């Protein structure tokens, strides 16, 4: 063992790592830097050739336009309601379904599990039309509930997948002992399994929230009234409504990105851990 440890592990040369890292960071971050910079430029500075790298007098004018003279605040509220609602619903449904898949063996389980995954494989464009008709029949077009329900299609499958593999990694012996002591299945789930899977739950929550917050096409089809429109739609409208006002568009982009950036950066470790665990252990 000692001898092996003395063998030096070959690696990339330092200069290559440095160059590649700098390039990677630049490629990933430059658009956001440019977005923030553009959002504090005055109209005149935005439309200057050559572009100005650092605004002489940063202005809040664009943010004032977005926050007080547009529908963006209302859309922000709609986005919060819809994302929180669909995250909560997906979490509840996924907890029960994953527990069922992880702890029981029943007839048709592989089939049902693959049915859940099919949702992830389905081309969404192919079911927009019938979904629209379904929602219209249920009177759910242009309601919060309509979008919250529809978002189950995109959040539930991966949530069930991630949580099932998480539950499977929790030793079943803990629950068996509790059952011998007379605990019911639900007590096992809520008293033993769930408290032990908080990181898994957190990653599912972040995933569901981020996905629904960012979703564009369903929102475009099923929320056509400004009382339920979400931020992505608001942003898209903004760039046509104020075709030339790129400063306001960039400010709205910053407003929309901030919650996601904060949520993601604070939960990053949990989220990435949960996601990759689901993928590699499946």
């Amino acid at each position, binding site marked *: 063992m000692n001898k092996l440890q003395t*063998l030096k592990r*070959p*690696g990339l040369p330092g200069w290559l*790592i440095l160059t590649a*890292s700098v390039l*990677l*960071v630049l490629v990933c*971050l430059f*658009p*956001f830097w*440019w977005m923030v910079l*553009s959002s504090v430029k005055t109209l005149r500075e*935005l*439309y*200057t*050739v*050559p*572009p100005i790298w650092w605004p002489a007098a940063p202005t809040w004018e664009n943010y004032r336009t977005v926050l007080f003279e547009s529908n963006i605040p209302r859309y922000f509220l709609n986005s919060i309601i819809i994302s929180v609602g669909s995250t909560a619903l997906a979490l509840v*449904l996924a907890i029960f*379904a994953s527990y*069922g898949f992880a702890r029981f*063996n*029943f007839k048709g*389980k592989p089939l*049902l599990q693959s049915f*859940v995954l099919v949702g992830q*494989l389905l*081309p*969404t*464009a*192919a*079911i*927009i*039309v*019938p*979904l629209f*008709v*379904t929602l219209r029949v249920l009177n759910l077009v242009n309601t919060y509930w309509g979008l919250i*329900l529809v978002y189950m*299609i995109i959040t*539930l499958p991966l949530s*069930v997948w991630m949580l099932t593999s998480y539950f499977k990694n929790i030793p079943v012996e803990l629950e068996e002992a509790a059952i011998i002591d007379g605990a019911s*299945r639900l007590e096992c789930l809520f008293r033993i399994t769930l408290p032990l899977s908080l990181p898994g739950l957190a990653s599912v929550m972040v995933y569901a929230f981020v996905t629904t917050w*960012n979703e*564009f*096409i369903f929102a475009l089809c099923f929320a056509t009234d400004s009382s339920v429109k979400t931020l*992505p739609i608001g*942003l*898209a409208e903004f*760039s046509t409504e104020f075709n030339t006002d*790129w400063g306001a568009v960039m400010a709205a*982009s910053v407003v*929309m*990105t901030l919650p*996601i*950036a904060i949520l993601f950066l604070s939960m*990053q470790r949990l989220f990435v851990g949960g*996601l*990759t665990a689901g*993928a590699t252990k499946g």
Partner: protein
Amino acid sequence: MQKQSTGYLFVLPALMVLGMLIAYPVAYTGLLSVTDNAGNYVGLDNFRRVLSARATPTAFWNTLWWVFGSIVFQVILGVLTAILLNQNFRGRAVVRSVTLVPWVVPGIVAATTWAWMLHTEFGIINYMLTGPGLIDEPVGWLTNGSTVLPVMIAINIWKMFPFVAIMVLAGLQSISNDLYEAARIDGASFWEEVRYVMLPQVRTVIVAVTLLLVIWALNHITIIYAITRGGPANRTLITPIQIFRTAFESVQFGQAAALSVMFFAVAIVVVFIYIRTLASNPEETR
């Protein structure tokens, strides 16, 4: 464990919701595809009309370009990034977090920001390229028919390669140290280690991720729709956008459904072939 039927009760609510939202609409698409807007049965009329539309073959080829162009580069860049992030160096955690940013950011934000950067007159990209003389004069990236699709593909690559990187990185980090040690005893260089240890070990991850990327490339039409809506002159029209426009702009639900059925069938066949080739490959069945 006893009373296995209890399992059904646990999975039932989720399955009911998914059944209502997936199984029913899929069946309903089939029905819509053979009826007109008034609900009368019209046989294969919708299919005939869609297939004879000039936009359909254009959209089909654009979709192929969009999917393959995106995926090839997403996988290559993603794997290279994963290999880089698998190295030990100071600041690795920061670089890793930063790499994820394009993936997490809302698609619509990425679309508008890139659209602004690619602005013909005031965009930073044209400035950066004309400055050092890489191009002679500003290019209308989003209005020029020959550049617009490659540009869309580039944005999509930028948006999704971090996902490949993070999945492959997880695979790389779960490789047992024994394999590296064996390679080192044999005196393997770094690139030999990449080729004979890392890549074979993460093949399954790459294969699974590629399948997801194909499906996402077909699903995530946000970037194209938000920037060009399929234009100019249908140069970026891909089939999902054609479905969307047929349904909600021309209000031809029957034709949109017929197109959906064909799109769905092709997607299923591709996925099926992909999974079958995997299953028949003895290396993958471990």
